[in-house]
């Protein structure tokens, strides 16, 4: 039985288990999504959007869909995966199951809690009916698959005029209790008018057992809301991730999604921004540093529907060994979206001959009074720059690392949580195989 068949045969049992009476709309949503997945299955390379991103090796495993063992983890053993230097809310899952022990949630003035309870409890019904699965792509069978099996994940609802005093960390651990595990977290983030929230998310396996995560997050930013979302992708080389993030913004809101992809075997990021109001700013940043046979694919879409909005997109990639990078940046400027300012940049450095990058900007502009710029570069390290550093006594390897760090720096500069910035910088140094010999 292949993975698709396995998923199809387990759907009914799953629905029976999680469904409750209050959940009729959710039930309908799941069923509809399930039919879509059943009809279309997983995408193949014949699909234009998946041309350079073969899923085959990810799908070949015999995944456990619903792990039965409950594994506890001590905080001390996983502390390094938290930004533990700062106070934060935490929503933590172990093998897809909520861990109250590692979490720190709240219902005081806002809801920072679990998707599963929000889907079930009547008091959340109105919110769920209003927001759940409202902005996901209905043409993406992988997202449909997640919707069909949606049950657990983070649920964050910040009412209006609230500046959250500390960031929220969402961490999905897998323990290796199953030889091959598939996880499908589903999260919902709703940020009210004038409110401000910072979120750090990561998927982390604790062993080298195979894990495949198909994650979907919907983010709603109301008028003048500010959302900063950081994704740390530094998983084990046996982990694969498809991470789809859908963002809807109302007028004057600012949402940034920052994706740091260093680890994993296979990573596909789908990022969609839908602007529903004027004077919106959408910010998309990414740093990818990979080697071996790793693959990272960043697929982005920004939908400019209203006038006077901006989008700023900056993706930097460093590819060593036989790694593969894919960047596809779609920007759609609707006819109504006059005075749009859309900026897109994708810069790549290829370190070894065996590495590949496929980059494709896609601009579809239907308005006439707009400023849209895009650029992609693929290069190598500048020999003159390298000589400059070495002539000051900095050995070749360190000099290369310093230049690569400098190359990624402008995307790094956007991180607004200092401790997180330090952490990411350390991960970069680590990934580049050097001690960057300076304080940060």
């Amino acid at each position, binding site marked *: 039985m292949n993975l698709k068949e396995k998923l199809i045969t387990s759907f009914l049992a799953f629905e029976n288990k999680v469904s409750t009476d209050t959940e009729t709309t959710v039930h309908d949503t799941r069923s509809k999504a399930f039919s879509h997945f059943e009809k279309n299955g997983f995408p193949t390379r014949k699909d234009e959007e998946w041309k350079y991103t073969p899923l085959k090796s990810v799908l070949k495993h015999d995944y456990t869909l619903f792990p039965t063992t409950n594994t506890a983890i001590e905080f001390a053993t996983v502390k390094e995966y938290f930004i533990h230097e700062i106070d934060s809310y935490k929503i933590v899952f172990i093998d897809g199951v909520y861990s109250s022990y590692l979490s720190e949630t709240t219902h005081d003035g806002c809801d920072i809690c679990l998707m599963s309870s929000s889907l079930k409890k009547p008091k959340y019904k109105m919110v769920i009916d209003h927001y759940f699965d409202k902005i996901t792509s209905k043409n993406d069978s992988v997202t449909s698959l997640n919707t069909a099996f949606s049950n657990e994940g983070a649920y964050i609802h910040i009412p209006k005029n609230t500046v959250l005093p500390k960031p929220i960390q969402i961490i999905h651990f897998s323990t290796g209790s199953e030889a091959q595990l598939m996880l499908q977290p589903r999260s919902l983030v709703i940020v009210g008018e004038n409110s401000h929230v910072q979120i750090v998310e990561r998927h982390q396996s604790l062993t080298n057992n195979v894990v495949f995560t198909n994650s979907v997050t919907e983010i709603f930013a109301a008028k003048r809301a500010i959302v900063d979302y950081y994704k740390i992708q530094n998983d084990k080389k046996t982990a694969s991730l498809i991470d789809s993030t859908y963002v809807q913004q109302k007028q004057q809101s600012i949402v940034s999604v920052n994706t740091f992809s260093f680890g994993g075997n296979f990573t596909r990021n789908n990022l969609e921004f839908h602007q529903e109001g004027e004077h919106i700013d959408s910010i998309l940043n990414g740093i990818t540093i990979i080697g071996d046979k790793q693959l990272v694919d960043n697929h982005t879409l920004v939908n400019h529907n209203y006038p006077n909005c901006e989008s700023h997109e900056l993706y930097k990639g460093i590819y060593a060994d036989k790694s593969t990078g894919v960047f596809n940046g779609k920007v759609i400027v609707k006819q109504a979206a006059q005075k749009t300012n859309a900026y897109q940049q994708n810069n790549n450095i290829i370190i070894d001959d065996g590495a590949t990058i496929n980059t494709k900007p896609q601009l579809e502009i239907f308005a006439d009074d707009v400023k849209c710029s895009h650029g992609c570069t693929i290069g190598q390290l*500048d020999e003159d720059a390298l000589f400059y550093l070495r*002539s000051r006594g*900095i050995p070749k390897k360190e000099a290369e690392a310093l230049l690569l*760090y*400098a190359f990624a720096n*402008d995307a790094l*500069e956007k991180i607004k949580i200092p401790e997180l910035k330090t952490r990411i910088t350390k991960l970069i140094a680590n990934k580049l195989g050097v001690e960057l010999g*300076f304080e940060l």
Partner: protein
Amino acid sequence: MLEIKNLHATIGDKEILKGINLNVKAGEVHAIMGPNGSGKSTLATVIAGKEEYEVTKGTITLNNEDLEDLAPEERAHKGIFLSFQYPIEIPGVSVTNFIKTAINETRKASGQEDLPAKDMLKKIREKAELLEIDRKFLSRSLNEGFSGGETKRNEIFQMAMLEPKLAILDETDSGLDIDALKVVANGVNKLKSKDNAVILITHYQRLLDYIVPDFVHVLHNGKIVKSGGKELAHELEAKGYDWLK
């Protein structure tokens, strides 16, 4: 200190240096002048070890040690410093952090511990003062958005920090107004001692009014065609280079 014998160097198929002989002793200042394309900058980068150039004949020795097989960083560790005409911008790495890295890597190469933070700060403060560099400047990203004067001042600041045995200053005077030139020259003069040596590479005699050379060499078409004392610079200023060709 530095001894160059019959040095030939090529880049690609093109021979740029065609038999250079030069002897620089400790305590001396040498000026190398010459028209554009004569090979001045090539000579500087070949001494510093740029790998794109191939030395096809001849030798370069520093204190009797052949430099041929040494990487640029190893030459730096032995005490060679090259001030660049066009230094590279390094966003995200401050002037301070860069020089700390350079100093500690150099120390590491000779088996020394990192310089204690307190000593490092003290040294940075001293040298910054010498070159009239303020503290804000030190926390800026290296060479990013620097003016011509700031760039050169920063190069000499790094030289002051690294305390090389042999400093090669490539067109350090270009892009400097007279005030900046005086500051830079003053810095170089104060760093000069009987134990180190300086090679100035320059187009114009102007810099030599402030840093007075013991010897002046004229480079033309990859060879030193004339050597003399500081008065040669004045002669070149008056007559140009044509009479030497």
